């Protein structure tokens, strides 16, 4: 949405923090320049990781009093890039730089039926949407899948608000989500909005295409922060620049290249646009494609990658989680 994506940076004061599930912290912010956050919108936050400035995107879970109180919820992922660890240290009274709400994931009013699908922390993008659909008395189902109840934020509140319209799947209770069944329940005028791990979203995309449903009715937002593998440290070589650099677990390949002085082009930095494309010359390991820019055909060809989100990993098999002995190595050409 070109119109509403002008970034307006401002200070936000933390007014409330609290745990809402294992490793999930709810943070309520009072922005200086409040505007109401539409369903599907997120804010970008400037975070500090090892003294380095970076930004993270968080869905707005609740927007109250015309946006004077914005709630977000942050999952602490020990293996991720450190932004969430910073966010978990925030206390009431702290100030941080945030954008006014940005919209990449608008909810359209007017579909005959809605399915909202949340995997884990992805629920944060769905809460606001579900509330609006309920208020408008539209036909909707909120599907919420997680590993265990303790790890699923807002479960009780959602149960209370949405009753029958909420369907919960919990892995460790033996009621995992069956993607095929879910997609089979969609009709041609159903819109499905989803947010969750890349595996889940990929499975839904495939099932949606196979069911020959209308592709634009499948809506999702990706921040490029979930992959097929756990992130590992790996080595990038750029022969033309004489570079050999290590990409840490909590760093992206694009950032590592920039830090090493490579003049890199980029656009979205979240795996959508393909502007950060690099060509793969040699690979010792596997590429964990975390973008939504390449088709499956292009991803399996392993000739190019979106270096803002995608990584090299050692595991040849999705199921191995043995600790790597030597890091993966990818040799690339940059434009």
């Amino acid at each position, binding site marked *: 949405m070109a119109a509403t994506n002008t970034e307006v940076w401002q200070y936000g004061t933390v007014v409330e923090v609290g745990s809402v599930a294992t490793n999930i912290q709810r943070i309520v912010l009072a922005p200086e320049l409040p505007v109401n956050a539409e369903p599907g919108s997120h804010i970008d936050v400037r975070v500090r990781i090892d003294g380095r400035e970076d930004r993270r995107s968080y869905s707005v879970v609740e927007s109250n009093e015309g946006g004077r109180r914005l709630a977000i919820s942050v999952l602490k992922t020990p293996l991720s890039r450190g932004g969430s660890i910073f966010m978990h240290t925030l206390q009431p009274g702290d100030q941080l730089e945030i954008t006014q709400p940005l919209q990449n994931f*608008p909810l359209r009013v007017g579909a005959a039926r809605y399915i909202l699908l949340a995997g884990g922390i992805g629920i944060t993008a769905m809460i606001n949407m579900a509330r609006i659909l309920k208020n408008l008395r539209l036909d909707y189902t909120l599907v919420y899948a997680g590993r265990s109840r303790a790890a699923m934020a807002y479960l009780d509140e959602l149960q209370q608000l949405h009753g029958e319209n909420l369907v919960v799947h919990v892995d460790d209770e033996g009621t995992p989500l069956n993607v095929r069944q879910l997609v089979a329940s969609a009709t041609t005028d159903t819109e499905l909005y989803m947010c969750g791990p890349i595996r889940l979203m990929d499975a839904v995309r495939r099932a949606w295409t196979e069911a020959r449903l209308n*592709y634009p009715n499948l809506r999702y*937002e990706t921040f490029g922060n979930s992959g097929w593998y756990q992130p590992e440290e790996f080595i990038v070589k750029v022969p033309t620049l004489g570079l050999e650099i290590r990409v840490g677990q909590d760093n992206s390949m694009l950032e590592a290249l920039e830090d090493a002085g490579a003049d890199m082009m980029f656009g*979205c930095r979240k795996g*959508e646009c*393909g502007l950060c494309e690099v060509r793969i010359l040699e690979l010792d390991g596997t590429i964990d494609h975390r973008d939504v820019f390449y088709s499956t055909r292009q991803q399996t060809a392993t000739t190019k990658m979106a270096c803002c989100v995608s990584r090299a990993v050692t595991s040849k098999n999705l199921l191995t989680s043995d600790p790597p002995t030597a890091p993966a190595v990818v040799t690339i050409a940059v434009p």
Partner: protein
Amino acid sequence: MTAVSAQSSTTNKVLGYPLNVWYVAAWDKEVTRNPLSRKVAGRPLALYRTEDGKAAALADACWHRLAPLSLGKTVGKDGIQCPYHGIVYNSAGRCVSMPAQETINPSATVPSFPVVERYRYVWVWLGDPTLADPDLVPDMHQLDSPQWAGDGETIYAPCNFQLVLDNLMDLTHEEFIHSSSIGQDELSESEFVVTHDDHTVTVTRWMFNIDAPPFWLKNMRDKFPGFEGKVDRWQIITYRSPSVINIDVGVAKAGTGAFEGDRSQGVNGFVMNAITPESDKSCHYFWAFMRNYRLDSQLITTQLRQGVHGVFGEDEAMLTAQQAAIDANPDYEFYNLNIDAGGMWVRRLIERQLESEGRLVPLA
């Protein structure tokens, strides 16, 4: 710019426009398979019809490099193709094809605005789409009722929309601006009554036992050939939020009970006005003149349209000059008179709406 309280801005020379409302974007006949570009409430729109005839309104700027979609063409069942690099959007504003790559970027959307087609108009809602209730479209039923016949036009008026609303809420100007057609001395001499509720303002004026001005004499003779004599004349102006004004107008043979409710010895018209802000200083002024007699006469329809066209041309010239004078004298304020009561209530209702949207700010 800072927010100001409702009381003090009633006297602003020009007002901002609400967004959580329905505006007429176009006549139904204007929206076709050929995209139409029209700016409504500051937002450029591309308007088109899908293959099965549904009107669609998208932001007139492609997500990619903002090329105007209205310069593109409709494709497939409900798509529109950007004329620049060929991205195709459906009527919900979602990308369905990105020619230059194998996947579709999930962010590729343009805003799509709620649309209702009613009373021969295509209405759009530019504000919060979750509030876009079709029941809020203001009543203009005479436009497509079998009891009424008529037609209209669109005026592009280079002035703030509120100036047009002021104009229509106070018809004493007819005596001076429209002296050759509908103006007469009795207009400014007669009493008028103003009433209002939360969404409407009504100004009622009756003039008894007067000569019919040229426009009305002709209409009387269309219904009552050879008519001579005095008439009773009425103007009942009804404003409906946000910017529709329907004026019940007519004359009847004097003393035949029109005021009491029997209009059978007269002719009745409805002037249907929908004023759509385009920018702070311009608006689209959609009007039609509907009548409830000689319904089958296309000749009368045409004559009335041409007649009103002439009358409204006089208003257009004045409104253009008034906005120019406002701009040229930024340090002068309006003085509001008793005759402005209708217009002032309209301003009050618009302010309340702006206030409820948190958008009550003075315009430069």
